[in-house]
């Protein structure tokens, strides 16, 4: 009897399993798709992904965007918000019941802090789905598998990729694979105070050309800086502080040196060029033209006020200074500090490339492109992530493609004085009608985006600023990039320490170079990744 009951029970269970299996398989075979092929037709791809998500019961996709930088560069996160709106619109118009929601727009001032946060939170699955940061961190993030390899996806969107400046696409690669799309870039001009120049008889007419053809070099900068000092101006030169990346290493390139050897894949300590760099800075300090403690100056209370108040003739800055001076209260000559007006910035500052170190060499500038990167776990806060990972990743890629729309890129460029990364965006900047529409925020943008950029637009969108961007765009032809090598930040830190010690007079330029070499060799791992080339030049004189 017991045996019969057992057999009966087993049959019932078996029937149940078979029946449920049949029902299940019937449902799966009907509509569920867990991947989509990218074709290069944006609308078609977005619809295919939207329908696939819908068929899997996903009606809301949540993403978060992390960005960092100066206060005017908020489009680094709001570009993603706008991209989401544009994709949502496509879905809505085509009856796809899916919506992207940007749950978090995390924006911090320091891009290094943002990188540290991303690095520590990514393995825990708590980092943003989109991460905009310097290309300098891309190799480490790519090497650790923390960002998405988009090479395959980008192949389908060759038409879009080709519109980016090729040097910037190269900066988005690691070991030949594409890990992001350029978001912005900049140049680092040498600013010259026109009023101080006029006072000392320094004729600035044609100065851009003279710098371009290598006729005006750092020897001339030193000459005029001395003249300015003699005339009672406090300083001849002010420059940025920080980890010597990416500002002061322009000296290495300006003296014909290099920082990276393509053949060996190693970083390079170019001894002659570094010695000349340190010597020039040391000489400027010795002559009282450059503050010896500049590396510990306060940005808001010392560096910027000294420049905008005309207490220096030259300044090694960045293109973004142009609008930063118009939005931050740095000018305190009339009592309460206030921002400059566009007309004042135009009237007071001339700008050139970073001059050649000596005659016969070329001028340079340095860019640090920011890159849209996609978290390799993008979309993980959404349902059925393991099953639908491919769809979420492709959707994230399409969002970056959308966030790179020429108008979004152009808005960012104009309001933050960064240079556009796409040729189409560069054209838009010169379009007066479009600029006027931007000024009045008469553009088809997400209300959240409009609200967040309203104040910045009011102070920065101006024909003078657009002209400035157009004027400095040529500098990208001369641009150099710091090496995208995981060990470069460690080397940059050593450069900073050496420059600081030389500026403070704790070391001579020669001792500074030896200090760099000693520090590199002190860490066996760094030493393996760095080549030390050349020797300290004998009988070299400056100026």
């Amino acid at each position, binding site marked *: 009897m017991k045996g019969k009951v057992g057999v009966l029970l087993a049959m019932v269970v078996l029937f149940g399993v078979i029946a449920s299996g049949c029902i299940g398989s019937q449902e799966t075979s009907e509509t569920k798709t867990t991947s989509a092929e990218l074709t290069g037709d944006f609308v078609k791809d977005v619809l295919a992904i939207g329908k696939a998500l819908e068929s899997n019961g996903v009606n809301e996709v949540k993403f978060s965007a992390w960005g960092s930088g100066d206060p005017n560069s908020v489009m680094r996160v709001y570009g993603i918000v706008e991209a989401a709106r544009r994709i949502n619109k496509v879905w809505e118009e085509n009856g796809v019941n899916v919506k992207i929601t940007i749950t978090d727009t995390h924006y911090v001032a320091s891009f290094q802090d943002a990188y540290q946060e991303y690095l520590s939170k990514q393995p825990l699955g708590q980092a943003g789905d989109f991460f905009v940061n310097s290309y300098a961190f891309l190799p*480490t993030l790519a090497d650790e598998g923390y960002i998405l390899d988009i090479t395959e996806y980008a192949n389908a969107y060759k038409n879009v990729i080709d519109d980016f400046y090729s040097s910037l696409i190269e900066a988005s690669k690691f070991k030949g694979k594409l890990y992001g799309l350029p978001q912005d870039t900049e140049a680092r001009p040498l600013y010259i105070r026109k009023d101080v120049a006029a006072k000392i008889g320094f004729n600035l007419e044609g100065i851009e050309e003279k710098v371009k053809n290598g006729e005006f070099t750092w020897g001339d900068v030193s000459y005029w800086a001395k003249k300015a000092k003699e005339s009672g101006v406090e300083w001849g030169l002010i420059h940025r502080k920080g980890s010597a990346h990416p500002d002061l290493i322009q000296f290495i390139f300006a003296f014909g040196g290099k920082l990276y050897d393509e053949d060996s894949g190693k970083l390079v300590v170019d001894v002659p060029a570094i010695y000349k760099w340190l010597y020039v800075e040391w000489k400027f300090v010795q002559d009282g033209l450059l503050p010896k403690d500049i590396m510990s100056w306060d940005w808001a*209370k010392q560096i910027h006020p000294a420049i905008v108040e005309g207490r220096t003739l030259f300044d090694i800055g960045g293109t973004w200074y142009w609008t930063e001076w118009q939005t931050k209260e740095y000018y305190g000559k009339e009592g309460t500090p206030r921002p400059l007006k566009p007309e004042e910035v135009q009237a007071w500052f001339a700008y050139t490339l970073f001059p050649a170190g000596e005659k016969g060499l070329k001028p340079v500038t340095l860019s640090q492109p920011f890159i849209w990167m996609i978290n390799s776990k993008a979309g993980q806060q959404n349902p059925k992530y393991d099953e639908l990972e491919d769809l979420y990743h492709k959707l994230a890629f399409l969002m970056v493609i959308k966030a790179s729309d020429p108008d979004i890129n152009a808005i960012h460029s104009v309001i933050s004085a960064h240079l556009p990364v796409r040729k189409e965006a560069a054209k838009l900047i010169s379009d007066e009608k479009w600029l006027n529409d931007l000024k009045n925020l008469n553009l088809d943008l997400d209300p959240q985006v409009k609200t967040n950029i309203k104040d910045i637009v009011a102070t920065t969108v101006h024909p003078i600023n657009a002209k400035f961007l157009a004027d400095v765009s040529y500098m990208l032809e001369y641009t150099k990039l710091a090496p995208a090598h995981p060990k470069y930040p460690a080397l940059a830190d050593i450069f900073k320490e050496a420059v600081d010690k030389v500026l403070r007079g704790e070391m001579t330029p020669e001792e500074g170079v030896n200090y760099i070499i000693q520090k590199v060799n002190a860490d066996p791992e760094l030493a393996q990744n760095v080549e030390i080339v050349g020797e300290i030049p004998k009988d070299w004189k400056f100026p």
Partner: protein
Amino acid sequence: MKGEKLRNLSFFLSPMIIMVGLFYLIPLIFTIYISFTKMRNWNTERYLTEVVGLYNYQRLFHMFQHDPLMRTVLLTTVVFVGITLIINVFGGLLLALGTFFVNESSASTIRLLWLLPRMSPIAVYSLVWYYFFHGSDIGTLNSILMKLGVLSQPIPWGQIVPWGAWSVIIFVNGLVGVSFGMIVFTSALNQIPKELVIAARVDGASAWQISRRILIPMMKWHFLYVLTWQFLSLLTTYPHLFLLVQWDLVSRDYGTTLALYVYNTAFGRGEQDQGLAAAAAVLLSIIGILGGFVTLKVLQFEKMIHEPRGDIE
């Protein structure tokens, strides 16, 4: 009987044993393990099982031999811990004794004022000193001295090496630490029977004599506790130092202690080398254990924990 005693002991000690194991022992063992791996950039999946033997220790000792910064780090650690410890312990003792002899309302106000550095958020507190010691004329100290005509040029206090940098970090951390000793010593003083002090007063003893002959000898335990605790705290503290160095107020070379070096190596900019940092942390732990042991020996801890003669088993 023995088994029952063991059971009772285990029962009462188990919460503490579990806590010590969970929050002290396991992290220490884990740190030692990481120091033998190639762990970096938080990538546990990739590196946590990649054992590299003594590689991190070899690299660390190579750096100690050849990197001038590493020798400075050790020297700075010794000077910083040594001097700040003296300030913290004796400053706390002095404040406790000082407030013991004044009326209660003034004593409370003084104690509250000295607690302010500990109550303030680290960033805010450090920012105050950043602007106070700033090396240009925007610095409060320079500005005051220049207005008084004492200085004609601002002095970059934190960049004068080594003593300028050391003085700033010792001053800033010293102020934070004093309050800890003050509280412990004050509570110890309040436990001393008032009759002893009154009797001494009747006999004509001065405040100094009362302190030296009665109060301080009765606070031996507390002194040992504050000294050991503060020594270990100072050896491992880094947040204030991190900010002061980060903001370029003090020289990086002479503002970096071993604890800050461990932090910067593990979580600093660029590549974050947690394997190397763990090796340095193990070294720091060994110094801490040895230092703590020496402190207990010197202050004759063993004598102090002898069972009282009057106790009966």
